[in-house]
């Protein structure tokens, strides 16, 4: 029996196959038939208002192609005198509502202006109303009402992509007009400046302020690259002219971000041409200041001093911190230099201070210390749990997708002491007291187990430790647990029932889980929930930790960890040692090296003499700042690779000017293990150079021009990586990376990469359900330090703000605020905006108060983006005992009104 021929329809005489559910417009577009539209965008639900897309259909009245499904046998005409006439009247009506000089027919103009030209709409039709003033209140976006045709594409993009609901329509009929909040000022609106609306506006009514107005300078170069801010790893299209980035737009079909970006990725690029970029190498001069040096001088100096110190104090007196902001290639070469040329495992990266706990815990539970799921699972998940993360601010593109999932009807559970934005979209928000994550997860697991809500066959077939966990949890009472978490047991039950009935689910987490003294424990207890619901290794489910920085995943993968080598290989494995000896010329020591906090301690104690810090302002970002500064100042040699003369760089003996994300080639690996190509859009300023080249040159200088360091291109570094760690990267090469890169593991050249890890069984065999005991935070509150301080990020800035403070983002948020509950504020007699002194057992900071009901009374929140705040001086020395990840999230503090600042 042969299949019946597929159904067809006819568009403009062409026979086209009919796909179920497809619109006439989409099928026509697929066949290159262009139908004019003014309210349609591919990624958005049809709006159907402009009616420009009308087509004629035999036997029916005219229909809008953008929302009319195509049906078998339909005969459609998209052109003709009648349609042309109708479209022309529609365009005339739109144009007639605008002031005369607002738009003009222009074959090279905006979509609307091109249509006015194509349909020959007379130029004299216009409203004589006075032209309204342009809204330029926002640093990144402007609105020209005189161009707006009320098509609502911006509104739909805002709602359906970002989920921010900034726009509305006010008034009826001809009085209908677009609004964005109570005032006509973007700056006062709820806009988060993701720019999704700008990309769809067909008239130029909403435009970016970072770009040159049309008719001005056009870009002379464009590349597709990866955002250099957070670990989502959005792909952007970077256009530049004369060595300056003009604009960044989301790559439309990028697997990671599908055309969307956030305010940082889209707009915060001006830092790259900031006047205070470092443009020459700097050497410390005798007077304690810096003098410019040539590259050969600086490289020779660094190489000589590194060798001298190694020979004098031994290899373990040297250490390095690679940068999560730099490329995989740079991180790989730097750890290789320290491991093979110097001979120490003292290589760590800033992942230590963020997600090391996550990696350790996931490694213990499953055998692989990375996300098991991918961002694509956000759209497939029926249940999302978000714990200790504030994605709408810290990982905005993922945050927007979580919100869309919740709006679509996926169940959402939010676990966070603060009532973060996503809490408003959640089925249940569990405001666990800071430091009580372990107990809360145990309580949820207890309900899952005791109410028979577990995925039994999954647990039986793929996990171990269930009986122990059940017995362990039976010994605890929900009421007892509630005294620690301060979350009512009924709320816990409600959440657990949703998790149990709607799972498998996607378990998303952030630094609120890992940056705790019980970081590893917390993540393991969280993994229990993933395992009990049968989520790990399934599509649309699994563990999805959100990595903080653009390449923090890559840094760990490359081996920037003291106890694991490239590709998480074990330093004490003889086979590995043999392989590395062949590839690197020398195998690293079998014993693990020092973590970052240990390196500081060793420096202060005089055991660590030299440190190479790549692109991290540790003097600002690391906790217990006073201690860090002491450590840096006790070194014999501090090498810093940086964009700017940061607080850390100021203390260096040699500073290498680095290339920014816009100025180098290489790869980043995002939080879903996706290795993507970074491409130079502009040349580095002055003599600044990409990190990897400088590392190579120092290594060559140290190793007598060893042929094993003769890399000429970053792709050659990747090729070596594939050989060194074939189990994860064997199939990775620049030739194969393509537009959307590859997700590791990708062991051979035919492997498509891995979206869901552990699909066919766990890397360690069976996954471990863990009995995790609670330990109270070490920095306990008491009478003199009664409040719990949580530190974190806000949307508009990134980490210590080195980059974002040098962009117009500073006009959006210009300071770190202390968020506290109005009840606490009243008790302390602190009014909104008043300056507050925050005193911990370790240091003090001063910040203006912002009263916020997002906080639980007794807790306060402070961001760490501005150096003058010195947030991290307040954070204590406590770390997780296993991962050594510092506790940024639970700091006991006292609050008092501060005298007005002297300045």
């Amino acid at each position: 029996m042969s299949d019946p021929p597929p159904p067809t329809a006819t568009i403009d005489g062409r026979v086209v196959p009919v796909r179920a559910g497809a619109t006439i417009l989409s099928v026509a577009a697929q066949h290159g038939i262009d139908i004019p539209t003014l309210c349609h965008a591919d990624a958005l639900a049809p709006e159907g208002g402009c009616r420009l897309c009308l087509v004629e259909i035999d036997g029916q009245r005219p229909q809008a192609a953008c929302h009319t499904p195509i049906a078998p046998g339909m005969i459609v005409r998209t052109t003709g005198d009648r349609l042309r006439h109708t479209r022309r009247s529609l365009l005339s009506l739109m144009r007639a509502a605008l002031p005369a000089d607002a738009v003009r027919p222009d074959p090279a103009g905006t979509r609307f202006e091109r249509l006015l030209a194509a349909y020959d709409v007379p130029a004299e039709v216009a409203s004589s109303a006075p032209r309204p003033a342009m809204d330029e209140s926002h640093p990144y976006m402007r609105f020209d009402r005189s161009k707006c045709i009320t098509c609502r594409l911006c509104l739909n993009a805002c709602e359906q992509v970002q989920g921010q609901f900034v726009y509305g329509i006010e008034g009826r009929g001809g009085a209908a007009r677009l609004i964005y909040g109570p005032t006509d000022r973007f700056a006062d609106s709820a806009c988060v400046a993701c720019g999704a609306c700008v990309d769809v506006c067909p008239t130029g009514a909403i435009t970016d302020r970072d770009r040159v107005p049309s008719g001005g300078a056009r870009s002379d170069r464009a590349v597709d690259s990866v955002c250099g801010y957070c670990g989502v790893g959005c792909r952007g299209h970077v256009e530049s002219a004369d060595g300056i980035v003009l604009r960044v737009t989301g790559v439309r079909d990028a697997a990671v971000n599908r055309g969307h970006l956030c305010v940082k990725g889209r707009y915060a690029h001006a830092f790259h041409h900031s006047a205070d970029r470092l443009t020459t190498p700097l050497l410390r001069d005798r007077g304690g200041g810096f003098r410019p040096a040539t590259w050969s001088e600086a490289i020779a100096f660094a190489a000589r001093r590194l060798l001298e110190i190694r020979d004098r104090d031994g290899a373990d007196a040297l250490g390095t911190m690679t940068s999560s902001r730099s490329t995989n290639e740079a991180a790989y070469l730097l750890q290789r230099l320290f491991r093979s040329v110097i001979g120490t495992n003292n290589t760590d990266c800033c992942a230590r201070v963020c997600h090391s706990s996550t990696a350790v815990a996931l490694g213990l539970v499953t055998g692989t210390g990375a996300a098991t799921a991918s961002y694509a699972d956000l759209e497939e998940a029926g249940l999302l749990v978000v714990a200790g993360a504030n994605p709408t601010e810290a990982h905005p593109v993922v945050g927007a997708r979580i919100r869309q999932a919740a709006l679509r009807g996926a169940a959402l559970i939010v676990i966070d002491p603060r009532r973060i934005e996503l809490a408003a979209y959640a089925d249940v928000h569990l405001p666990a007291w800071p430091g009580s994550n372990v107990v809360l997860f145990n309580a949820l697991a207890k309900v899952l187990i005791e109410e028979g809500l577990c995925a039994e066959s999954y647990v039986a077939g793929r996990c171990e430790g269930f009986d122990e966990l059940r017995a362990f949890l039976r010994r605890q009472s929900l009421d007892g647990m509630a005294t620690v978490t301060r979350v009512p047991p009924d709320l816990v039950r409600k959440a657990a029932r949703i998790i149990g009935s709607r799972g498998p689910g996607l378990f998303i987490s952030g630094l609120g889980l890992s940056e705790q003294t019980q970081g590893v424990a917390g993540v393991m207890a969280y993994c229990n929930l993933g395992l009990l619901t049968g989520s790990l290794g399934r599509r649309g489910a699994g563990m999805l930790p959100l990595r903080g920085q653009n390449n923090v995943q890559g840094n760990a993968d490359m081996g920037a960890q003291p106890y694991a080598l490239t590709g998480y290989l074990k330093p004490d494995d003889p086979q590995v040692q043999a392989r590395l000896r062949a590839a690197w010329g020398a195998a690293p020591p079998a014993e693990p090296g020092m973590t970052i906090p240990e390196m500081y301690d060793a420096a202060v104690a005089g055991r660590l003499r030299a440190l190479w810090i790549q692109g991290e302002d540790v003097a600002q970002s690391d906790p217990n700042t006073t201690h860090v500064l002491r450590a840096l100042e006790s070194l014999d040699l501090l090498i810093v690779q940086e964009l700017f003369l940061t607080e850390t760089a100021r203390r260096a003996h040699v500073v290498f000017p680095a290339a920014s994300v816009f100025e180098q080639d290489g790869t980043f690996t995002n939080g879903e293990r996706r290795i993507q190509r970074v491409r130079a859009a502009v040349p580095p300023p002055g003599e600044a150079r990409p990190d990897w080249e400088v590392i190579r040159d120092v290594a060559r200088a140290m190793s007598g021009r060893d042929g094993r360091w003769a890399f000429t291109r970053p792709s050659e570094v990747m090729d070596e990586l594939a050989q060194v760690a074939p189990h994860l990267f064997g199939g990775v090469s620049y030739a194969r990376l393509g537009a959307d890169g590859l997700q590791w593991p990708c062991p051979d050249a035919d492997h498509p990469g891995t979206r869901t890890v552990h699909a066919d069984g766990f890397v360690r065999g069976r996954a471990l359900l863990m009995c995790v005991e609670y330990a109270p935070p070490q920095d306990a509150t008491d009478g003199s330090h009664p409040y719990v301080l949580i530190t974190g990020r806000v949307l508009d800035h990134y980490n210590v703000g080195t980059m974002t403070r040098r962009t117009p983002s500073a006009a959006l948020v210009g300071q770190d605020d202390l968020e506290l509950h109005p009840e606490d504020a009243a008790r302390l007699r602190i009014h909104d905006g008043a300056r507050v002194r925050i005193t911990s057992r370790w240091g003090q900071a001063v910040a203006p108060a912002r009263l916020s009901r997002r906080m639980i009374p007794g807790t306060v929140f402070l961001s760490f983006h501005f150096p003058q705040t010195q947030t991290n001086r307040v954070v204590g020395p406590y770390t997780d005992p296993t991962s050594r990840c510092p506790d940024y999230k639970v700091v006991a503090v006292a609050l008092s009104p501060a005298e007005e600042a002297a300045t």
Partner: protein
Amino acid sequence: MPVTEPVLTRRIPTAPWGDPRDRRIIGYDEYVRTGGYETLRRALTMDPSSLVQTVKESELRGRGGAGFPCGLKWTFLPPPDGNRRYLAINCDEAEPGTFKDRLLCDYDPHLVLEGIAITCWACRLDTAYFFIRGEYHHQAKIVERAIREAYEKGVFGGRGLMQACDFKVDCHMHRGAGAYICGEETGLLEAVEGRRGWPRLKPPFPAVKGLFGRPTIVNNVETLAAVVPIVDRGAAWWKSMGTASSIGAPGSYGPKLMGVSGHVNRPGVYECDLGIPLRKLVDEFAGGMRAGRRFKGAIAGGVSMGILGPDQFDAEMDFDIGRRYDVMGLGTACPTIFDDQTDMVAVARNISRFFSNESCGQCTPCREGAQWMYRLLCRIEEGDATTKDLDLLNELAGSMGIIPGTTICGLADGHNWAVRTILNKYWAEFAGRVKPSYHGLTVSAGRADGVSSARIVGATGA
């Protein structure tokens, strides 16, 4: 066959069977005493699908304006899947000149509630939203009280009557906020969901994807009230009233509430058989033309339908009226009568103002074109326009609506038909109000608002 006894107005004294001065609110007890909820009780013992079949056989057509066969609409529902299914009761009644649903709410709300309960059982709907126009403060109170009584007596809420068949219906009232567009069925659904009442794109139709994305039936108050006597006395009895179609279309059966307003002696709601000639409705029910004046025209049934001209006084008030008398349709069957002293230009201008104010603003022609039409009509009324403007008005009106494909909902069709039929049926009156236009003369005739007639012609490509 004519209606020989009051059906929907059985408990509401109405001429010729009763005296409106005897009207009072029928509470639950009195409703039950007079046979109320008996039909529901019997229906609950019957197979739901047989009830749908009965309504289908009765050929009951929707009383909300579009006249869509009610039973057929019900069959569009997908089979129940265990999740929520809704009934939305359309009591927006914002069409100018229409006030028939109000009568039912005012005096016999339990008749409507019984219809709701039977419909929910027949269609397996579990939640009803009674959407009532914001201006019906008084009616909202009465219906709300009736709903409370119905809950107490176990009509709603799964106790009492429904318990026996393991069925539960909830009924909530939702009050509108004064927008005509919320009477459009999908605008209504948006409003109930708490959003702007912007009509949705169709498909999907509400029966498949309505309130909160779930299957939903939207019916008019009078339609639901009619379900009760149909189920009670059968389809054949229902079809014994009214008339078959004279043009091969679906028939117009049963009695119909007709609200007569305008220049008549006794404006009000009357229950008549469909097919009654307008003249008879006016003369026998509404007491004849006021002050003995001559009939000049009548809005067919709600202003959206357009106008019956001076020579169409004998038009039969049934669902064929649209095709036979060049109006859009029967609409709500609530005619507004104009006598010979009426200024038809003012009528058109007034109606156009209504539509340009009530356009929701979604569709280009309805949002922008409506204003042009209104401004043109003002100019014509002021004597400032030219004959060419009449052509322009005609074209502009004719270009908007679902029928030419240029809009999402039927509001624009209403504007289109109202203006176009008035203009064309009283062309001479309009022509007498404008200056003749000579080509080339008006080209530079700028107006205070910066728009010249010739330019507007350009705007529509004429």
